[in-house]
């Protein structure tokens, strides 16, 4: 079994582009099928993909915490979307976007190549291949920001899809990059999601969920206590659970 198989990056279920919105498990729970299909950045054009809009109290609270900030700095750990960028730039933010899903997938591919070369005797095999070692190596080239350089972070549901050891490290790195008083917006699935989504901001209280081909499979479904432990160094935490089993959580440092 290859390294990518172990991480679940090979043969993962891909989203059926023809799945209608009304078959979606989230439909009818504050989540609405909407408008014409929108193709996310980094994917070929397709008129068949449908985004789902979602009223987000978490986003509303997140923005409330940023109100009056003036020119702030935002870190978006999802893909680059014109709507999200424009939304925050028009409100005076400098937006930094780093798609950690894609970065992690690329990293795993490289690791796989290294492993293959190592098994052929062409490389040093003393490198730490444990999840902790991998996480450390991944963060050597990603999320490299000066301390306290962001006022806000959009983490989306990233942590559910990463190895727990990497998730812990990412929370730690992000915490270092957030200024005291800064806000982190994260989402956690209460049960294993049936479809992989990317998120973007439509307006100040609406998110668009765009079904996408699964980049990484779900690694862990966090319980409330685990989330609290993960973000233990934050001053406050506000959890908003919706009927679609997606928990929106705000952390204030």
């Amino acid at each position, binding site marked *: 079994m290859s390294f990518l198989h172990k991480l679940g990056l090979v043969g993962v279920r891909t989203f059926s582009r023809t799945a209608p919105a009304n078959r979606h498990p989230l439909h009818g729970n504050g989540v609405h099928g909407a408008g014409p299909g*929108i*193709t996310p*950045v*980094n*994917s*070929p*054009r397709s008129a068949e993909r449908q985004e789902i809009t979602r009223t987000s109290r978490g986003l*509303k609270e997140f*923005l*409330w*915490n*940023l*109100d*009056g*900030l*003036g*020119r*702030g*700095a935002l870190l978006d750990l999802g*893909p*680059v*979307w*014109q*709507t999200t*960028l*424009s*939304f*925050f*730039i*028009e409100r*005076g*933010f*400098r*937006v*930094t*976007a*780093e*798609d950690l899903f*894609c970065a992690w997938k*690329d990293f795993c591919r490289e690791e796989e190549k290294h492993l293959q070369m190592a098994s052929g005797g062409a490389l040093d095999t003393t490198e730490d291949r444990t999840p902790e070692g991998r996480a450390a190596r991944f963060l050597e080239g990603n999320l490299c920001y000066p301390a306290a350089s962001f*006022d806000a972070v959009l983490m989306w549901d990233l942590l559910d899809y990463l190895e727990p050891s990497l998730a812990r490290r990412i929370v730690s790195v992000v915490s270092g990059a957030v*200024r005291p*008083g*800064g806000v982190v917006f994260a989402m956690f699935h209460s049960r294993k999601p049936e479809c992989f989504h990317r998120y973007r901001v*439509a*307006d*100040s*209280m*609406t998110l668009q969920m765009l079904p996408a081909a699964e980049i990484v499979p779900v690694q862990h479904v966090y319980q409330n206590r685990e989330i609290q432990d993960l973000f233990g160094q934050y001053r406050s935490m506000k959890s908003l659970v919706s009927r679609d089993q997606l928990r929106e959580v705000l952390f204030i440092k």
Partner: protein
Amino acid sequence: MWRKEESKTQAVPEISTKAVNSTITPPAPAAPLHEKPTPPFAARTEARISQGIKIRGEITGSDDLFVDGEVEGKLALDSASVTIGPNGRVKADVVAREVIVRGCVEGKVNAHERVQVWGTGQVHGEIQTLTLVIEEGAVLRGKVEAGKPAEKGGNAFAAAPAVAEETSSSANVPAIPAVN
């Protein structure tokens, strides 16, 4: 007869241009002699690296540049616009006033004003700019920084309103349309 008609057709655009200029733009103040007037955008000269041409090294200058060939090295045109055409392949750090990507760029893109990535465009590397415009289908792999630099040192949340209801006004802000 023949000559009269010819002179009429030639005169039409001249007259209409004058009329447009007189109604839309106010009379420009006389520029001081020591100041060189900046040419309008359309009049700017544009250098061109056509398809099939490969350049390796550093390109600098002040004129706009259109790259439809291959460039490897560095593109530094601080005050100009760089367009990577649909066939363009750039493996270089690009520094310019404006960068338009319709082809493929591998490297850091730093535009003082704006970066536009068309649906056919691909950027593998970092983007740093004031305004970023992304079209559907564009491929971006790497870190993106857009917007004005954040204020440093201040207490970010000192001015946050105390009453939650106040923020509901921000909900009235119209949604920003998606790029098609």
